[in-house]
């Protein structure tokens, strides 16, 4: 709980009208500022925060360092976007404001949001940085918005000049679906060098993420773990099914080229089928697949087989990671490895069984979260039929007709 006085420098230049950070860059910035103020005041009640704007008519201090959160939030209202950002003057005014803080025991920190292009040269920024370091002022830089060539370099140089014992930080936030404030929460700017605002940050993270976009299913695992788990499992199964479908299609082409390709399958979940349906070599690898090397190896194999199963190989990685969670599936995987050494005849029988449309759909229906009428499931079935085709032409016809309905 470091006792700190912070000055936040806001960029309210014309470049902040851009909407690449939702809703506008300026609004995203304002949200981030609110979050930071809250975190700072919470981590230590004696902390003070002040705000100044760097663009507009000129550098203007909106509120001098105060621990009154309401005052800070109020001053953020009604800010106009316009003008050009004066970074050098902004930092120097911030330093001055910190110098005249009431409690001299507080450590000095400046947080600057750099969203517009930096027109100053590196030398000037380094000089400013050295002056800050000399007066033991820490500087946090939030680099977002305009990706000017040279801007990153200048900003990094500024940080290097200021940085004393890792007390200063820089974060680069590219535009994307997640909000600027969400991206900031995990950074040391929020967590305050590993301690301090972490409690607030964790709460903010949970709130922000639970609300929109943060979690996959819009359900916060903290609030409803069972629901979140059920959703996640069904999602994984669905993904596995889709991968299986794609794989089968690729397999089919590969099989035709290679001729007699060993196919093994189990009656368990379809997921294991897809894994075991690969070529024996690839199959062995899929069992161990937890890292990228294997995926690349698979890709190489697939490419040597000369078809589009490369993409299937990568999906294979994802899938086996999902299966790794489930012990039953792992067992089934092992079974399928053994199966692959069996002769063709038994495989054919198995395939026959699978080719039986009704049997398969009954299995699928019993699996949770699977809708037999789902188009991806249908694709899977279709591909399964295709691969059994060379051996079981008669049986295929009837199911195929059903598929085409």
């Amino acid at each position: 709980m470091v006792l700190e006085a912070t000055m936040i420098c806001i960029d309210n230049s014309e470049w902040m009208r851009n909407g690449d950070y939702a809703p506008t860059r300026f609004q995203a910035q304002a949200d981030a500022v609110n979050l930071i103020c809250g975190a700072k005041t919470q981590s230590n009640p004696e902390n003070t925060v002040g705000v100044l704007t760097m663009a507009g008519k000129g550098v203007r201090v909106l509120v001098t360092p105060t621990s009154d959160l309401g005052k800070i939030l109020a001053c953020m209202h009604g800010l106009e976007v316009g003008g050009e950002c004066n970074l050098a003057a902004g930092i120097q005014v911030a330093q001055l404001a910190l110098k005249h803080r009431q409690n001299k025991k507080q450590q000095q920190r400046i947080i600057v949001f750099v969203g517009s292009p930096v027109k100053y040269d590196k030398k000037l920024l380094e000089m400013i940085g050295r002056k800050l370091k000399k007066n033991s002022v820490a500087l946090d830089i939030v680099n977002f918005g305009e990706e000017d060539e040279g801007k990153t370099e200048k900003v990094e140089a500024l940080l290097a000049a200021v940085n004393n014992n890792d007390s200063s930080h820089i974060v680069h936030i590219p535009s994307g679906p997640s909000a600027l404030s969400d991206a900031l929460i995990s950074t040391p700017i929020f967590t305050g060098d590993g301690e301090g605002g972490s409690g607030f940050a964790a709460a903010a993270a949970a709130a922000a993420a639970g609300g929109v976009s943060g979690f996959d299913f819009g359900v916060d695992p903290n609030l409803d773990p069972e629901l979140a788990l059920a959703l996640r499992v069904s999602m994984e199964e669905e993904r596995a099914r889709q991968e299986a479908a794609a794989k089968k299609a690729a397999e089919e082409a590969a099989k035709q080229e290679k001729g007699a390709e060993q196919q093994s399958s189990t009656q368990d979940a379809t997921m294991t089928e897809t894994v075991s349906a690969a070529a024996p070599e690839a199959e062995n690898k899929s069992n161990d697949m937890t890292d990228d090397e294997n995926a690349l190896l698979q890709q190489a194999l697939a490419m040597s087989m000369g078809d589009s199963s490369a993409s299937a190989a990568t999906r294979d990685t994802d899938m086996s990671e999902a299966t790794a969670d489930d012990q039953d599936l792992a067992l089934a995987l092992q079974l399928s490895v053994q199966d692959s050494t069996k002769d063709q005849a038994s495989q054919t029988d198995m395939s026959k069984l699978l080719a039986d449309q009704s049997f398969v759909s009954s299995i699928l229906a019993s699996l949770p979260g699977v809708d037999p009428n789902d188009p991806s499931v249908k694709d899977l079935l279709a591909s399964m039929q295709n691969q059994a085709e060379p051996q079981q032409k008669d049986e295929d016809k009837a199911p195929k007709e059903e598929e085409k309905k």
Partner: protein
Amino acid sequence: MSAESASGIQRSQVDLLDFVDWSGVECLNYSSSHSLANALKQGYREDEGLNLESDADEQLLIYIPFIQVVKLHSIVIKGPEDEGPKTVKLFANREHMGFSNVNDFPPSDTADLSLDNIKGKPVLLKYVKFQNVRSLTIFVEDNQSGSDITKIQKIVLYGTTVETTDMKGLKKIEEH
């Protein structure tokens, strides 16, 4: 400055190290691996290899509060011949100075350190200016050779205490 022989310290003067309030000691622009303790603390300051070094440029600002009021008589600043400090300004009873306002006030005394002083010869100060010192600010403006880093191996303050009540020593009178 007094023309008195400065080969030794006057007998009444003591090392004021015991009266330093360590909780308030501050130093600006020091390099983090070479902190003020290297120059001030007993043991560290005797070690030739341990120096207080400046960081971004050659200036240093050292703030030393005392636990009681003292009179400052003389000061020893020891350092290497080339990177040791040259111009040293002393301010009595000025709190929380920064590099920007260090030139706004006239110093209580200025010590221009010669090579002798750098070797360990004490610098006598204007005793009349340091009669009632609660805190001392030492501003090292430049060094002997003009290099980018100033190194100080030892700082010793000599003086006497003024009779002040030590609040910690106050005890409640026992009722018999």
